[in-house]
């Protein structure tokens, strides 16, 4: 799944490619009413983001603009738009599908690289503080049970997650 072919190599249009992704299935139902934009807490405070615009670009196949742009990473995953969409477009999930595609193309914002590294080293995306781990007993908390890394690594290898990373910039 994580090594899906890109639109160029498989001859699919970008819209078809997104629709075949987990989360991207409902994209084509959008009729651009803008309910998403008017429900969006990010669009209210920033001109850098408008969900309707990202969906429009996806429908038009503007692949490069979306996958290598900034807007894709500005959805705060609040699901307000998805809850209210009259066409039942699963907008927040479409954003995940688009991000998944961008990451396969090697575009991974630094914060996501950090989450990924945390997951692969301790099975948690927020690293455990050694200080707090020691203090647990003082607060009457039981010892923490570690994640089963052996099992997790097998899952991450089966999906190809362990191979996903940011492409180095050319020198």
């Amino acid at each position, binding site marked *: *799944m*994580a090594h899906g072919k890109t639109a160029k190599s498989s001859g699919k249009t970008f819209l078809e490619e997104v629709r075949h992704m*987990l*989360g991207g299935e409902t994209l084509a139902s959008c009729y651009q009413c803008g309910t998403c934009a008017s429900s969006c*807490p*990010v669009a*209210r*405070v*920033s001109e*850098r983001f408008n969900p309707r615009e990202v969906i429009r670009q996806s429908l038009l196949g503007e692949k490069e603009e979306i996958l290598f742009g900034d807007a894709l*990473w*500005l959805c*705060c*995953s*609040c*699901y*307000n738009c*998805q*809850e209210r969409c009259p066409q039942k477009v699963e907008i*927040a999930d479409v*954003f995940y*599908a688009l*991000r*998944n595609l961008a*990451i396969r193309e090697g575009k991974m*914002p630094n*914060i*996501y690289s950090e*989450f*990924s590294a945390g*997951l692969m080293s301790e*099975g*948690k*995306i*927020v*690293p*455990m*503080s050694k200080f*707090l*781990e020691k*203090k647990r007993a003082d*607060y*009457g*908390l*039981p010892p*923490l*049970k*570690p*994640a*089963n890394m052996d*099992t*997790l690594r*097998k*899952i991450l*290898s*089966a*999906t*190809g*997650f362990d191979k*996903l990373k940011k492409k180095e910039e050319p020198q």
Partner: protein
Amino acid sequence: MTRYALFLGCTIPARQPHYEVSARKSLAKLGIDLVDLEGMTCCAPPPLQSIDLETSLSMAAYNISLAEEADLDIVTLCTGCFESLAIANNLLRENAKLKERVNKILSNAGKEFRGNKEVRHYLQVLMKDVGIDHLKKNVTRKLGNLKVATFYGCHSLRPSALLKFDDPERPKLFDNLVEALGAKSIWYRNKLKCCGGLLRGYADDIALAIARDKIAMATKAGADCLSTLCPFCFLTLDLGQFLMKSTYHEEYNLPILHYTELLSLSLGIDPKELALDFHKIRVDKVLSKIS
């Protein structure tokens, strides 16, 4: 005693002992037995869903399979964990093809998702297993004068079709549980809007602008405190007020309390046992109002 597998997640043990302490103490007092299972990983919340949805679903299914093996339903304290696990549980139950796909991945690790256990947010457990009447009978310190701005966060409510938590536009569950403690749940503008927390680390300025709106609206409505259900919302709104001071020169000093902290106080648990030092915004105003 009602037993649940506790899904603790990453953020609570790493950053917020006050949440964990108050949750364990209050739920135990109400007859909920929490079991810590071996080997659970991250739930795979939105940041990981953004990297790869198939992996995230598989990780959630793996964690649920551990509870299935232990023959226990899951309770979560973190709303993010609730969302990841409840979505996976309900989606995979409804979609046999997807379930087969995920189970093929899990078979590499000798695991299988069956879909025969429930994933519950602890507020649902309080409603279902404890009940409002029993809860009220256990309140020894009524939070009588306290005006509480409840904040559901996003991922308890939405996507509602898969989470089945409450009405996504007019929820009542949290407000009813606050009022059961004798406090007053107040309305404030944009109550159901996001805290902005998930943009922290990518667009801190936007995240803070969204958080500021929440704090400003709750303050304007006369809240004595704002109550959260999620460690991420807590962090964004509590620590966030320090950032609002340096960025906007605005000082709100609005105490942020997890619901389990209000619950613990109302059940008569000594504030000294609740690790309240972990709050960036002092909660003394709240304590003096209820003692």
